[in-house]
C-alpha cells in the first residue's frame, strides 16, 4: 500500500508506542527492582532509577539463592527449566512429525481412526487428565525426575496436525519422483520431508519451547525436591512466605532471568519462525 499523507504514520506510531510502553514498563520496573536493596521494595517504595547492586543481586540469585524460602540457587532452576522445555519441544516435534508422516503417507487399517484419536486428545490437555496422569507417573516412579517432568507432556496433537497440514501441501509428484529415484519411505522422509519441514520445525520449536518453559501446574505436582524445581515454580515459592521477609530484589532478578531463555529462543529463531508460519519452501 502506498500512502502519501504527511502525518499518515504518526497516529499508528503513537498507538504502537503506547503498546510498547505498556509491555515494557513492568519489565523495566522489574529490572530496576533487582538492582536495589531488599529493604527498599519491602518498605513499600518502588524505585524507577537503577540502584547500585546489580552484580551483587544477580550473583546471589544465580549461585546462592534466597536465604529462607527456596534454599536453592536459581542457576539450578534455570537448568531444570531449560532441560524440561528443550526435551518437551524436541520430543513433541520428533513424535508428531513421525506420526503425521505415518498418517499422511502410509495406508494402514484404522489410519483415520488413529488420526481422529490424536485429534481428540486436543480436547484433553494436562489439566483435564491431571489425576490419572499423575497416578501413572507416580506408579512408574517418575516423580522428581526429568522423565516425569517431560514425558507426560510430550504427546502432542497440535504439532501432529500442524505437520499433517504441511505434508498435505507437498506435491504427490515429489513422492513419485522419489520412488523412481529409488528412495524408500525412510529415505524419502530423511532426504525430502525433513529438509522441507525445516522452517516449520523451527517455528514449532519456538512455540513449544515457550510452552514447556511456562509449565506451572505439572512441575508443581510432579516435583517435590528443591533441586528439581523449575524457575517458574521457584519464583512462586520465593514470594509466598508467611513469616519471612520476601527478598524482592532476588525475586525480581529471578523473574528477569526467567525471561531470558524464551527471549533468546525467539530472537535467535525469529527469521525461521516467521518463514515457517508464513511461507513454505516450495
Amino acid at each position: 500500500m502506498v500512502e502519501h499523507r504527511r502525518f499518515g504514520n504518526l497516529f499508528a506510531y503513537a498507538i504502537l508506542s503506547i503498546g510498547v510502553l505498556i509491555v515494557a514498563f513492568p519489565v523495566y520496573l522489574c529490572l530496576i527492582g533487582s538492582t536495589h536493596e531488599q529493604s527498599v521494595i519491602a518498605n513499600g517504595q518502588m524505585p524507577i532509577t537503577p540502584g547500585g547492586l546489580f552484580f551483587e543481586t544477580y550473583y546471589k540469585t544465580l549461585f546462592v539463592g534466597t536465604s529462607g524460602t527456596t534454599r536453592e540457587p536459581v542457576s539450578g532452576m534455570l537448568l531444570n527449566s531449560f532441560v524440561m522445555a528443550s526435551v518437551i519441544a524436541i520430543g513433541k516435534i520428533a513424535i508428531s512429525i513421525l506420526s503425521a508422516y505415518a498418517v499422511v503417507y502410509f495406508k494402514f487399517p484404522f489410519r483415520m481412526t488413529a488420526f481422529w484419536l490424536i485429534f481428540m486428545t486436543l480436547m484433553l490437555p494436562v489439566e483435564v487428565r491431571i489425576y490419572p496422569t499423575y497416578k501413572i507417573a507416580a506408579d512408574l516412579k517418575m516423580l522428581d525426575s526429568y522423565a516425569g517432568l517431560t514425558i507426560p507432556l510430550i504427546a502432542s496433537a497440535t504439532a501432529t496436525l500442524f505437520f499433517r497440514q504441511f505434508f498435505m501441501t507437498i506435491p504427490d509428484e515429489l513422492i513419485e519422483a522419489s520412488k523412481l529415484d529409488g528412495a524408500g519411505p525412510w529415505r524419502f522422509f530423511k532426504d525430502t520431508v525433513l529438509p522441507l519441514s525445516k522452517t516449520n520445525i523451527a517455528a514449532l520449536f519456538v512455540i513449544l519451547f515457550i510452552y514447556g518453559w511456562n509449565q506451572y501446574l505439572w512441575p508443581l505436582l510432579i516435583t517435590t525436591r528443591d533441586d528439581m524445581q523449575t524457575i517458574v515454580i521457584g519464583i512462586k515459592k520465593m514470594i509466598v512466605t508467611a513469616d519471612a521477609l520476601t527478598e524482592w530484589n532476588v525475586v525480581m532478578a529471578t523473574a528477569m532471568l526467567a525471561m531470558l531463555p524464551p527471549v533468546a529462543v525467539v530472537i535467535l529463531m525469529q527469521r525461521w519462525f516467521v518463514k515457517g508460519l508464513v511461507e513454505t519452501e516450495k
Partner: protein
Amino acid sequence: MASVTLENVRKVYAGNVEAVKGVSLVIPNNSFTVLLGPSGCGKSTLLRMIAGLETITSGTIVIGGKVVNEVEPADRDIAMVFQNYALYPHMSVYDNMAYGLRNRGVAKDQIEVRVAEAAKLLGIDGFLKRKPRELSGGQRQRVAMGRAIVREPQAFLFDEPLSNLDAKLRVQMRIEIRGLHNRLKATSIFVTHDQVEAMTLADTVVVMNQGRIEQVGVPTEVYRRPATQFVATFIGSPAMNLMPGRVTAAGVVETSGGRIAFDPVLFDVADGQQVEVGIRPEDLQFATPGDGRLSFARAFVEELGATRLIHGTSGSASLVVAVAAAAHDGPSESLAADASSVHLFDPASGKSLRRDIRGTST
C-alpha cells in the same frame, strides 16, 4: 534400451471407474511413441502404470522382456519426467540429478561424470549449484530431463512435460526433446493432449479415447487415414468437417448441401447406405457451382495470418474452409473437394469405411 509391451492392460479405480479398458500395444526399442488423447482418456493412467505408480488391475506390462507387474517403480529401470517437473526444491541442480544414482549406490566419480555429461548435453552445466526455484521454467524442464538421462534407463516416460511452459518455449523444448531422442535413441513414451506435439515428436502416435486405443500409426498415416471419426476430428486443426450423407451411386454421396464424389475403390459401401462424410478444411476449395459441388453460405472469417478460415453452412451442416491468405477469395458460393480427400465413416460405430482400415483397428 528396451521395448515395452502392454497386453490387455486394464485399470479399474475404486467405484468401478474403468480408466483403461484393455489396451494392447507394442512400443518398439528406440522408438518415440506419443500417447495422444483428450483429458480423461486414460493416457496418463497408462503411463503411470508403466512407471509403476499405479497398480495394474489386469493384463501384463513387459519392459525389456521382463514382466514388471509386481516390480517396484525404482526397479523397473525407467525414468520419468513429470508435468510440474517434481524437482526436489531443497536440493541443488547437481543433487537433483545425482540423487537417484546415489540411492542406487553408483560410485561418486561415476556420478560426477554422468551428471556433467547430461548437464552439458542439456546446456545446464552453468547452473549445477543453483536451487530449482532460481531457474526459469525451461531450465527446470531441462533439469527434470537431466535427472532422467543420468539414470541411463531402459525407457523414458514423459507425462505432459511441456504443458507448464509458455507457447514459445514449448515449441523450442519440443524441438530439443526430438533432437535429444535422435541423439540418445532411447525408447521414449510421451503423453500429451496436444496434437501438434504428437505430430512433431512421434515416430508412432497412439490416439486414445475413453480408455481405449482408437488408432496406432505414424503421424502422417493417422492424419491422412484416420481409422475412426474420433481420430479424424481430434487430429488436425481446425477439425475435419463432418456431415451426414447417403451413398446414391458408386462413388457419389449426397449430403444436404449437394452431391460430392468419393473414391469408390477406397471405401466399402453399398448404394443407399447412410454415412458420415468427412472432409478436412484444407481440402476444400472454392469453385463454380455445378454438379459435384457443395453449396456454401459463408458466415464469418477468421484470419490466422498465413491461412484464413472461412466458416459457413452447407445445407444443414456447418463447415470450415481453410484457404491460403494470399489466395483469391472470390464471391463464389460453391465448394469442391478432390474425390481422394473425402472420408467416409459409419455413423453408428464411428469407424472408417475404408477397405484398408476396416477390421484392423481395435
